């Protein structure tokens, strides 16, 4: 406690320095609520393919890592998030036995973390993740397995961002069942199509079931529109319907898909001349996500 007081005096003395203000804020929050800073978990999902889950989780991880420490986890055996962040497409060979599957089996994720940039790490996946359900069955692994594997690094990150496959499966339920005392959130992706419209209540049901049975702290952060065609005339009707059926759940930001964002998978983030253009819609979304996660953070 004495150390804290001394530190706060130092912080006060240099109070005009932004870095110290930040330290002071974090310390005062920690003291006030008596909790250590742990990672907030955000899972991107929807039981329909092609709704920008991987791109959105990848870009969100990148943007959050500008100021905070982020661990991205690929729970989809297609490995799109892995390829998106590493620019490596031969995932079966390059990441052989170095994936989230082995991390779950070893009950410790640390050996499988890859450094992407200063504040951004990744646990990759590849096609072998398809064997997860069988492994769970054979070895009696339960839905808290990811939580167990993440336990040693929970305080090393501010955010854990998880990409999931478009299915009701172990790969989707396990991340949703992963508890963090800083909060666990689900972002429901929506591409504006009828298929996705009907997938929303199904995914909300998976969230509810995971919450009820495994992770009482799980919250739906919101529904994120990632429109395939921003000029389609049914978009407005879809927006109204979602607002009516799930009031207040929709993120105000709408991602309008563009070629520059798609090309991030080719050009990457570093020294990309069209980066600002590619991230245009994601920047306000991430701000919104931060606000929602902060609002819903358990107080103590």
């Amino acid at each position, binding site marked *: 406690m004495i150390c804290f007081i001394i530190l706060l005096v130092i912080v006060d003395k240099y109070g005009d320095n932004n870095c110290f203000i930040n330290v002071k804020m974090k310390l005062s929050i920690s003291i006030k609520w008596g909790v250590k800073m742990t990672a907030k978990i955000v899972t991107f999902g929807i039981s329909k393919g092609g709704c920008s889950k991987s791109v959105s989780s990848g870009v969100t991880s990148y943007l959050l890592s500008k100021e905070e420490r982020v661990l991205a986890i690929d729970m989809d055996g297609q490995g799109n998030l892995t390829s998106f962040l590493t620019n490596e497409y031969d995932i079966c060979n390059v990441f052989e036995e170095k994936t989230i599957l082995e991390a779950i089996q070893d009950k410790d994720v640390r050996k499988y973390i890859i450094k992407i940039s200063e504040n951004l790490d990744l646990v990759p996946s590849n096609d072998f993740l398809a064997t997860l359900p069988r492994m769970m069955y054979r070895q009696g692994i339960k839905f808290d397995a990811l939580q167990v594997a993440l336990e040693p690094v929970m305080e090393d990150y501010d955010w854990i961002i998880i990409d999931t496959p478009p299915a009701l499966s172990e790969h989707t339920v396990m991340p949703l069942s992963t508890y963090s005392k800083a909060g666990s959130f689900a972002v429901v992706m929506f591409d504006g199509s009828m298929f996705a419209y009907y997938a929303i209540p199904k995914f909300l049901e998976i969230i509810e079931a995971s919450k009820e*049975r495994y992770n009482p702290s799980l919250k739906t952060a919101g529904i994120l529109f990632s429109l395939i065609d921003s000029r389609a005339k049914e978009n407005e009707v879809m927006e109204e319907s979602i607002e009516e059926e799930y009031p207040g759940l929709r993120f105000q930001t709408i991602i309008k898909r563009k070629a520059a964002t798609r090309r991030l998978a080719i050009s990457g983030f570093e020294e990309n001349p069209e980066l600002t253009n590619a991230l245009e819609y994601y920047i306000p979304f991430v701000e919104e996500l931060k606000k929602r996660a902060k609002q819903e953070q358990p107080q103590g």
Partner: protein
Amino acid sequence: MPSKNSLKDKIKKPNATQTFFNSYEEKLEETEKKQNDDIVEEFKDKNVVIDENETYDNDTNVVNDVVVNNEDEDDDYLRMLASGNKVKKVKKKKVFTSFYMDPDLAVEVDNIASRGEKGDKSKLINKAIRNLLEQYGVIERK
């Protein structure tokens, strides 16, 4: 026009999400039952009778008994629950063992246990032996 019963069946019919989650609960129960059955069989082979209500713990290779937590543990558990933390009620591990009893004692112990709950028989035996060993000075008084 569907009948009232068919409508009821339709409403009752679990959807895919419920079926998925239920399958895990059933699977877990099946696995635990199978493990228990295996251990019961194993002990039966050795002419040892065990209480089938006891459960087998895969991590420790011991048969666990159901333990009623004492008041302090319950208090901690409820406090964690009330503060919104995810809590797991930890069961105390018990080691399975077997021994021969005098017939009159065995009958008496069975009679007492039949009036109680699951695990009471083990509790009684533990308490009796603990008291005796404390009295002999073999173990420290709790």
